């Protein structure tokens, strides 16, 4: 592919990535915001933070995901939204890796109870892919 074609392809690719990344976080946030009590239990299963921290996170994180996802989608406060989603992805990926290393047979809990249980390995790979997507968006700035 020559240089002009690459230049015209990249904006379309970035737009597609932006929509997909934003959509995933809005859906994931909405699913968890619907059942914060259930999400608090999912957080507790990772055995990383005391119950109260997990419960506070369960009420806050879903809204943070939704708002940051929505901002990324509409293109307002885009870099800030991308920063938050990248940090969240990093945090979630580290938590999944930690659960795998400790041999916890838990489910990701990434989408609340909206989808079937997928364990931790598949979500871990998905998050790595999403981090790569976020890196493509950062390359714009």
């Amino acid at each position, binding site marked *: 592919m020559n240089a002009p074609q690459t230049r015209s392809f990249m904006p379309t690719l970035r737009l597609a990535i932006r929509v997909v990344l934003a959509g995933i976080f809005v859906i994931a946030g909405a699913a968890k915001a619907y*059942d914060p009590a259930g999400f*608090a239990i999912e957080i507790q299963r990772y*055995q990383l933070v005391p119950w109260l921290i997990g419960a506070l996170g369960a*009420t806050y994180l879903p809204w943070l995901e939704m708002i940051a996802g929505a901002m990324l989608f509409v293109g307002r*406060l885009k870099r800030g939204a991308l920063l938050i989603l990248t940090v969240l992805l990093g945090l979630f990926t580290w938590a999944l890796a930690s659960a795998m290393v400790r041999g916890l047979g838990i489910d990701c809990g990434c989408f609340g109870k909206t989808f079937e249980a997928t364990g931790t390995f598949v979500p871990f790979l998905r998050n790595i892919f999403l981090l790569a997507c976020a890196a493509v968006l950062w390359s714009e700035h």
Partner: protein
Amino acid sequence: MNAVRQAALILVAALIPALLTGAFHHDRPNWSEPIAPGEERLETILSWGQSVIWVDARPEKEYADAHVPDAIRLTLEDWDTLFPHFLDRWDQKKKVVVYCSSTSCQLSREVAERLEQNGIPSVYVLHGGWETWKAQGGGVKR
């Protein structure tokens, strides 16, 4: 506006619905950790006073390092050897409280179930296990 300032705005904006969720959502989380059926909090157990028999379900090395004063060691692994010792000390009028290392361990639950299967009434599991006992300043015997 740079990315960090934008992110700070979003972080603050998310606080508003989060606070409303915490205050009014019909499925908001409990702020204190829920406990499973059959478990009891340490405060409750301490309120029972002297009418408690403590059972330590942890591995031998951990028991040897430190344990709740007067706790009897009892594990599924060495059940046949240890259960008769438990029976020697068991008093029907007392409650039996089993503990293992922490909230995540299953040994205390398994031993509690086995005790119940053997006809021992009033068996409870200490919520949070040995970690909770230590954290709340319970006495330690080495």
